[in-house]
């Protein structure tokens, strides 16, 4: 299995999903070899010190000991003997030149572009280096299926499958259309498209995403399966130690503050809510390329004093913010799945989710809105804050419903897909 990130060093839902899926596969006694890149320096320093073979046992958060059948490989270029530093440098320079031609601009502007995706700096190089090294690794390892998560690992998946002659599954957690709307990055689109077309099976996280894969990438429908994500139950009941004395209601936005997540709709709805109710605060937890614009927008709408920005939260801070929140709102413009609402429900927070999300296919006990329908978002926020029975019913039914969405089912479905692929035709 080829991945890009893994908890606790994550920037979004992908790492969480990979963790949940592999853990469940482990419990089903499936052997998983998880290959992660070791990324070069970036402003997200946390990505770097990641999972060198000796260190991951000590990261207590993960409890890797639980994962009996999962093996981790962190690829670290400088340790790999297949190439001399000189040739590697040449390679990098070559790709950089290539990219310069592609974008007709300087390297810095190109890398800025990548920075805006919230992942680390020179991604294109990383991806191909990762592919080359993964292919190298594949020669020494035995496995039946190659399973690649999201576009960054598709080239690696293709290479490994070609070398080993094993069937390739690509797992689409998100597409370029979700992240960038209509302003797609052509290079990423091409990588995604090639990965999907070369794959023997494409796994989409929702029918919403499956439709995109078919209509935007021209992949034949009978090749694309839907496997819904699950949610990892926190199992912690912190209720008592965080009884926050508050006379203000808290409405939470949690996610990357990027175009995809619809922060501006959240703020416009907040403005409308405040016309009707006063004792409410809106918390935006997360970071992203639209953060500054969001702050300015809040000020511009005259609700700056009612909107709090927390920056990127992880671990216990996330738990804490859930315990404080009365309502979680996900106004995503395009959301392949959306694990966060499940986590919110798991933490007894009722949710409003956009209909343009995969998670709305699996949740019935949630309020659903069109992301652009600011009036309706505000209407529903007000209703939840105003009518305790609504909050109560959503919470109790929602929490119950979430317990049925398990990674075990996702892993089982993947297993079935693998088995079908391994039947000789």
């Amino acid at each position, binding site marked *: 299995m080829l991945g890009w990130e893994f908890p606790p060093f994550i920037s979004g839902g992908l790492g969480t999903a990979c963790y949940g899926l592999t853990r469940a596969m482990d419990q089903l006694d499936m052997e998983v070899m998880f290959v992660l890149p070791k990324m070069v320096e970036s402003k997200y320093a946390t990505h770097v010190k990641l999972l060198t073979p000796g260190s991951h046992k000590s990261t207590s958060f993960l409890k890797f000991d639980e994962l009996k059948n999962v093996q981790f490989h962190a690829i670290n270029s400088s340790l790999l003997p297949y190439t001399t530093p000189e040739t590697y440098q040449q390679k990098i320079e070559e790709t950089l030149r290539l990219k310069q031609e592609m974008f007709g601009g300087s390297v810095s502007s190109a890398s800025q572009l990548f920075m805006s995706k919230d992942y680390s700096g020179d991604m294109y190089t990383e991806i191909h280096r990762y592919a080359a090294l993964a292919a190298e690794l594949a020669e020494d390892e035995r496995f039946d299926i190659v399973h690649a998560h999201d576009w960054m690992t598709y080239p690696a998946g293709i290479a490994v499958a070609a070398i080993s002659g094993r069937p390739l599954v690509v797992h689409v957690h998100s597409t370029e259309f979700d992240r960038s709307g209509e302003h797609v990055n052509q290079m990423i689109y091409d990588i995604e498209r090639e990965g999907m077309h070369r794959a023997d099976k494409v796994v989409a996280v929702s029918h919403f995403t499956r439709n995109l894969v078919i209509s935007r990438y021209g992949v034949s429908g009978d090749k694309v399966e839907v496997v819904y994500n699950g949610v990892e139950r926190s199992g912690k009941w912190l209720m008592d130690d965080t009884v926050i004395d508050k006379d203000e*209601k808290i409405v939470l936005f949690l996610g990357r503050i990027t175009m995809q997540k619809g922060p501006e709709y959240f703020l416009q709805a907040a403005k*409308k809510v405040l*016309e*009707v*109710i*006063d*004792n409410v605060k809106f918390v935006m937890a997360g970071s992203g390329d639209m953060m500054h614009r969001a702050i300015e927008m809040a000020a511009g709408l005259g609700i700056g004093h009612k909107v709090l920005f927390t920056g990127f939260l992880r671990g216990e801070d996330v738990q804490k913010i859930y315990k404080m929140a009365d309502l979680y709102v996900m106004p995503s413009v395009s959301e392949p799945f959306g694990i966060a609402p499940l986590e919110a429900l798991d933490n007894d927070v009722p949710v409003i989710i956009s209909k343009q999300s995969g998670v709305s296919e699996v949740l*019935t*006990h949630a*309020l*659903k809105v069109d992301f652009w329908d600011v*009036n*309706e978002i*505000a*209407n*529903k926020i*007000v*209703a939840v*804050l*105003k*009518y*305790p*029975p*609504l909050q*109560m*019913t*959503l919470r109790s*039914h929602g929490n119950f*419903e979430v317990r049925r969405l398990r990674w075990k089912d996702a892993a089982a479905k993947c297993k079935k897909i693998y088995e079908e692929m391994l039947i000789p035709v």
Partner: protein
Amino acid sequence: MPSVCFYFQVHQPVRLRHYTVFDKNDHYFDDNKNGSICRKVANKCYLPANRLLLDMIRRFDGRFRISYSVTGLLLEQLERYSPEVMSTFDALAETGCVEFLAETYYHSLSFLYSRNEFVEQINKHIEAINYFFGQKPKLFRNTELIYNNDLACLIESMGCFDAIITEGADHILGYRSPNFVYQPKGCNHLKLLLKNYSLSDDIAFRFSNRDWAQWPLTAEKFAQWVSNVNGNGNVVNLFMDYETFGEHQWEDTGIFNFMRHLPGEVLKHPDNNFKTPSEVIQSYGSADEVDVPHIISWADTERDLSAWLGNAMQSNAIHELYRIEKKIKSTKDEKIIADWRKLQTSDHFYYMCTKYFADGDVHKYFNPYDSPYDSYINFMNVLDHLHKRCSVETDDGALGSASGIENLPDLQPVE
């Protein structure tokens, strides 16, 4: 010699329009949707069924007899959107073979929350039936056949009814059969007719079910089942929604053909006949007393109130609704009172039911909302606005611009 007693429930709610907390308009109902649904159901069900039954009554020269309960809300809507249905009902009334029953005009659950309101709505319905069909109803049926001993006593005390109708639920009958006339506990002269749910549901629910061992159900087979009651009962009470014909069971299932042949098949047996509910209670004395201390209904398998009052949203909405009764009535504003009463229709609370929501079943089919939560939000927004309107009336506009929950201490204050 079993008599077959048909009673059809005919009802359509007045559905609310999408109403947000930002709406300030006092028009709450979706005229367009109500009109189109009313016309659609009229064309698929009311018109063809009325014509068919009228035809059967004429063909059997008065030996085929039936009864209806048509809610006041539907009468209003039919007059407005589909007057031709009214004229076919009128023609049915003219035959003398059709009896009209009384219920709450607004198809409400008022019995459970306000006895005054309950009696007022029954009287309003009696007036309407008398006005349209020239009959004074002698039998009462409560919304969704909700029933208990108290209801029977209240109905008897009104002095104008001979009998009451409810579900022949197993747990109230025990070993007894629904095929007799009974007497409610605590009543002197009032009688009780009980639905034979098994035979009724064979038509209303199972008719088109291909997994059912008895499918396809023919008139001949069904008449045989009715005749089997011979010697073990006086009456087979077949009570069902009128929308069974053409709406719940589509025309292509053969439901109309079934009904066309049923009277002939039933009457083939010389001991069988058809009677209206009033004729049934005149013909047969009561076999026993039935004690129903706890409330029953004809809904779902539970036969209880959980479809309308099963979750916190439902009970909150209905409590808030009846809590403002005095305030509403003290405005003496007919429009406000009528709006408030239209909100009492049981369907509004049925839409908020979360019982089978996740499994997606019949509850969904009749639900104009995407989810029970949406229906609750919409209902509460309307109720909130209605409440503000009567504050405006009583305080001479002092709270005219009131918005925001702080100004409405009566209506679910935020904790």
